[in-house]
């Protein structure tokens, strides 16, 4: 049963990390409109950051699974970003390849 709980908590960490990262991005996204948007920004960061912190404190024996979930997402997130950039380069190479093939 423990392992199932650990998997579930790990998944929870993954999903919550998505929200925390999204909330932190509001600093960048709303910076140009800070005067009007700071309440939304503060509320979002406090909500998701606070929830993650509270869960970390409350989860006791499952804390590490939760934190691993959050860390795993951070890794995936960065990997996705660079992977996505590679996709563009790959698509450009494909165009070049198709052109060369059509001329042989």
């Amino acid at each position, binding site marked *: 049963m423990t392992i199932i709980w650990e998997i579930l908590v790990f998944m929870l960490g993954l999903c919550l990390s998505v929200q925390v990262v999204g909330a932190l991005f509001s600093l960048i996204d709303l910076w140009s409109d800070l005067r009007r948007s700071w309440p939304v920004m503060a509320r979002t960061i406090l909500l998701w950051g606070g929830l993650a912190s509270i869960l970390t404190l409350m989860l006791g024996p499952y804390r590490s699974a939760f934190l691993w979930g959050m860390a795993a997402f951070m890794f995936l*997130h960065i990997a996705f970003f660079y992977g996505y950039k590679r996709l563009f380069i790959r698509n450009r190479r494909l165009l*070049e390849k198709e*052109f060369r093939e059509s001329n042989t």
Partner: protein
Amino acid sequence: MNVRILGLGEVGREDRAVAGGKGANLGEMVRQGFPVPPGFVVPAAACQAFFQHIGLGRELEGHNDLAPDDHERRCHVIRSLIEKAPLPAELSEAIMTAHAELIQNCDTEIRCAVRSSGTAEDLGEASFAGQHETYYYVGADRLLDMVKHCWSSLFSLEAVSYRATQRLDHGDVFMAVVVQEMIQSEVSGVTFTANPVTGDREEIVTESSWGMGAAIVDGRVTPDHYVFEREGLRLKEKRIAEKKFMVPPRLSQTTASRLQEVPHSLRLKETLSPDQARTVAEWAQKAENHFGCPQDVEWAMAGGRFYLLQSRPITIMGRQNITEGVEGQYVIFKPLIENFTDPVTPLTGDVVSLFFSPPLGCLVRGWPYLSLKYCKAVLPYQATDEELASLLYGMDVLKTNLKLFWLKLPLFLGLLLGGYLFFGVLLARTRRMPVGFMDRFRDLVRRTDADDKAGPFEMVKRFFSWSRYFDPIGNQAFMVNLGAVRYMFRMSLLRQLIRRWTLDLREDAEALLCSGAEGVLSAEMGRGIWDLAQEVKKSPKTRRILEAYQPEKVLAVLKDEPEAQEFLAHLGLFLEINGHRAFKEWELASIRWAENPAPVLGMVRNYLLIDSDPVEHERSMARSRRDLDAEIRRRLEKYPLEKAFRPRYRLICYIAERAKYFSRQRENSRFYYIMGFSALRKKILRVEAELLAAGKLKCRGDIFFLHLPEIDRLQSGRLEWSDVGVRIRERRLDHIRLSKMFPPKTIGVTFAEKQEDVEDQERDGKVLHGQPASPGEYEGVAHLILDPSISLELKPGEVLVAPYTDPAWTPLFLTAGAAVVEVGSYLSHAGTVAREFGMPCVVDLQNCTKLIHSGVIVRVQGDRGLVRIISRQGGQKA
């Protein structure tokens, strides 16, 4: 070198080895008494002798084993060798003598057409269509050079690659050259003795335009279109196009662009009288009778005389040919098809495929399709290919009874989780953003546009992807658009809750609840055009000018009118905000409103015709929303806890608010990312101007028929006009042929059409079935608008019948009583706007632009997706 130049009448269809395919064909027509312009043939033997004379055989050794890049270089060397070597005196004298005889009886100096006529053109299955050059406006001074250019076109990249694939030896292929008097035609065109699109042998199709035929043959103009019934040559259909460009009969500068603008008075004028159109069809029939198979006939008219320039067998291109050579199984991607009613040009295709190439979706011949192979691997259903295709096409999504395939479920859920992890941050970032958070995209476009180092690839990366980690979300309009797809889930949920809790509420309840969002930029654009119309109403002179002149010409007249300056200032402000928009705005070749505001002026004129006020319309919609809100509350009162806490009502309001938010985000993000397409077009036009100045391109608009690697190579000098000219022509023609067709719903797989459709149509022939997009019932006069840049005048209350719509069509919805559209889905632009305006709308009604003619009375039943043709009286073909 003893070579005899042959008169056209001296060769016949058996002389292909001597005169080439084209020469033999023309000779045969001269012998049979067809009115072919006079001319002569420089036989293939002359080419062979010249190649021996310059020692070309040595140059060709080992050519078959070269690497692709070496091919380009080698072809360039061979072509230069042929073009620079002088012709032997005996041969050049013979050609010039024949030319002198050709022109001796003419009072005015005549120009010639110099046409390649390959001897390998009919070797088995090798067609060599369009791979060899033809030159027009050739005088005596350039004749010998142009003959050599025709010979050198045997070594264009296309021709060499094609021979390689056909395993033909480069040393065995020679070319005859036909030199003919160039008919300085007032009208010219092409006639097909069978419909080239449908393959119907009972129809004869003629396309004609002003000036020389090159404009039609090269696909640079939309011609007038005539369809005759073979039996009795009765005119069956006639469509007069707006002919903006022509290749004029006389041209002095050889390097200038051949295209000229057609005078405004001629643009919408019919090119052929009924008698002329019949004469053309009769000659085409005679050609078919002689050659024994359907013919594609090029003709010209000059000084009241008819000339037949060429006759060749038709390459019929029905729907099956669209999919020819396409491997795999695909289903059309309906939500996107309204952006791709015409297939995209090659350049747009490249740009789109840079950011739109996940394994699930791809462009097939310029249209968006879903790959059944990948969908099948992912979707957890136990289904045949046909059932899955039907599901993906969306005809039976709600009725589907496909069985779940439990073993595939973990994979499906895993992919959903992966999707969430990939897009989750994007979804979180766009969940609650203030109105106008994407305004910064305009600055991004301005900065990138000013950056000379940013090429097309860099621009695509900046505008359509998440290219920098710390980029604010406002700079990622296209990604925001992807995230806003949540709108449809909210709408679907809202529909189900309303149906469950408030039975028999009005059909458009959820659409009405989600309408009226503030800050929707396409709606503001519509209001902007309305404001411009109000500005015009203040000045009677401006109004008279707008009503008197065609939109294409009106701007020039307004500029000279002092009273119109105020209006022009407002127009300038409007274009500053909305100038990046266009009809078919995903297409890079589409001219933007900032470049030519004629479509905006047409819409302003359209608004002058109607009295209804959009503000009043918005007020009335707001009243309807309030009434609906009260009705929902009243009906929910019977449920427990509803009077005290109103949980169901609150839930409905929350979901409606979210649907409204994401719907606005979807519209606004599109407004901005289209700005990216517009900036990209500007950049590409700058590159084109450089290439035109360097002589590497000949006509404006050609660049859109090149691929990105070809543009790179033209810029770096690795390719020249001689390498790309034929490709551009072929792609233009292919694009035109495909644009006349409807993309097949599926490729490599079929599924059954809804039986009821067929039955109803067979029973009385008056009921057309499409897909419901906006509920309600409306009866009115149909008005077919194929191209809003030509015809924009929709009278109040008319039923708009259109091939597609996009945000640029929005103002027409204010005038229309209902809308019927050939493509699209519930979520497409037509449906969304029609629901916003509270009018019935039917989408995905294939061929509605052919089946419903302007002037007929139709009843549109939006909730059932039906269009009934009530009366055909008074109807006229558009």
